[in-house]
């Protein structure tokens, strides 16, 4: 059914007891044209664009747990496209433009809030590198501004700009079109959209192996719910990409780390932008419910445990309070971690693997949420056509052999 004000009114008249499920829960069929492994944002978006852009609807999305239960539900909901290199700028801004039309496209309110994203400069050197960065973005046609200390103060009155501040603020670099979106709604919106176009979304179905023919070409996947035949498989499993690659017999240039985030108890509106301090390793925004959403830097040792270490938690809370002393009496309600797939140049991998018929979308590291629309768009393209999407051409596995890395370590946000 189509969601609208009228549908809401009809629902209200029947006491909201007759809403149909947003997507089906079908039994897996024995054969599909394409199987997507991973029911997070990237996997669901891939399935949606396979059906929408390429007319391929005999598609299954296999999810080991529940939809959006991995990093899609564990991020800090920030969307932005303030990247440095032309390849990345094109990729991430395409994603942000898709986000700008996503609620209408999916008929599902993803609550995109383009409240701006401020990166604080704590030194003269920060200011210099930020002006280079902002100018580069402007050359790529992406909105970027440099703010003086006074402008930062007017935008973020809660920020400590006093002379005694532990980390003095000299200015900031801002992308006005950046902001936040409701992460669950992005996963659910793509799931509902894909389901309406005929895609089977199968939860509680873990992939346990890949089946190949004598030439090494993929012919199916083994799952906890039996074997499924297919000639094309797309993996979108973020921090678990290496685990799936091992099942298929190859390795990836990926290391899995825990990335922490936390929310405070809700309070009245206090902060209407996203503020990041790369120097101190913390960033903060306020959710629509009023919680302060705080993101940390990586726990810098390999981990598949979806919790963070206490040392990093302590550091990020201290950094947040140095920036916003008035938050000192807030209590943290929840703290968690997602397992992120970090590669050496902090840029994604979207394309073929050493196994014919098997394609992968991974390597987004600490910044996968903002890239969900473009990750799905480009993985769907290579799955449907066998050719890399123009936007994904530079982001291939082979760059780790040719050496043509796209080092976005700074633009990926927090140091890692």
């Amino acid at each position, binding site marked *: 059914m189509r969601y609208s004000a009228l549908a809401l009114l009809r629902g209200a008249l029947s006491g909201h007891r007759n809403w149909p499920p947003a997507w089906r829960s079908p039994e897996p069929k024995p054969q599909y044209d394409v199987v997507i492994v991973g029911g997070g944002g990237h996997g669901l978006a891939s399935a949606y664009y396979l059906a929408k852009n390429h007319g391929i609807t005999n598609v299954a999305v296999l999810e080991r747990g529940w939809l959006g239960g991995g990093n899609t539900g564990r991020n800090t909901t920030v969307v932005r496209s303030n990247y440095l290199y032309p390849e990345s700028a094109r990729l991430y801004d395409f994603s942000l433009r898709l986000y700008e039309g996503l609620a209408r496209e999916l008929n599902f309110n993803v609550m995109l809030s383009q409240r701006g994203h401020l990166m604080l400069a704590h030194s003269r050197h920060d200011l210099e590198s930020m002006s280079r960065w902002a100018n580069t973005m402007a050359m790529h046609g992406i909105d970027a501004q440099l703010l003086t200390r006074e402008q930062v103060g007017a935008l973020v009155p809660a920020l400590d700009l006093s002379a005694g501040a532990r980390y003095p603020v000299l200015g900031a670099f801002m992308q006005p079109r950046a902001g936040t979106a409701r992460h669950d709604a992005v996963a659910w919106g793509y799931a509902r959209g894909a389901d309406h176009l005929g895609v089977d979304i199968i939860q509680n179905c873990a992939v346990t192996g890949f089946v190949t023919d004598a030439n090494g070409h993929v012919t199916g996947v083994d799952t906890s719910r039996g074997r499924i035949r297919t000639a094309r498989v797309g993996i979108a499993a973020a921090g*678990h990409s*290496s*685990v799936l690659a*091992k099942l298929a017999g190859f*390795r*990836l*240039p*990926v*290391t*899995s780390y825990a990335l922490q985030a936390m929310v405070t108890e809700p309070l009245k509106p206090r902060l209407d932008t996203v503020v990041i301090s790369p120097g101190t390793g913390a960033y903060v925004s306020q959710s629509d419910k009023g919680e302060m959403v705080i993101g940390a830097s990586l726990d*810098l*040792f*390999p*981990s*598949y*445990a979806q919790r963070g*270490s*206490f*040392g990093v938690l302590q550091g990020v809370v201290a950094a947040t309070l140095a920036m916003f002393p008035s938050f000192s009496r807030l209590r943290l309600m929840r703290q968690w971690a997602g397992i992120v797939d970090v*590669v*050496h140049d902090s840029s994604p991998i979207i394309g073929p693997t050493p196994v014919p018929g098997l394609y992968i979308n991974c390597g987004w590291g600490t910044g996968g949420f903002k890239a969900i629309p473009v990750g799905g768009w480009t993985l769907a393209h290579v799955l449907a056509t066998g050719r890399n999407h123009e936007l994904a051409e530079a982001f291939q596995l082979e760059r*780790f*052999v*040719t*050496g043509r890395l796209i080092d976005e370590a700074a633009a990926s946000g927090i140091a890692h």
Partner: protein
Amino acid sequence: MMQLSCPWCGLRDETEFACGGTTHLERPPLAATDADWGHYLFFRDNPKGVHLERWRHAWGCGQWFNVARDTVTHDVLAVYRMGDPPPRLGA
């Protein structure tokens, strides 16, 4: 907080250490192909389970050592010196 046992200083909090990634990597000869060199530099097993890794007691004695650690539970299964062979783990 995770704790590691430095072979020289004993049990300390994880915040005193820095992880240096996978250990026992062998540098290929200079005549290696680009593919072999790329795999040596970047491609890793990244296991979900036991990982053999290098750590440095960065804010302590500064020494490097090896650790066998479970990446899911963070249990430290063995600590051994640089140059020692990998430990035999399990039953």
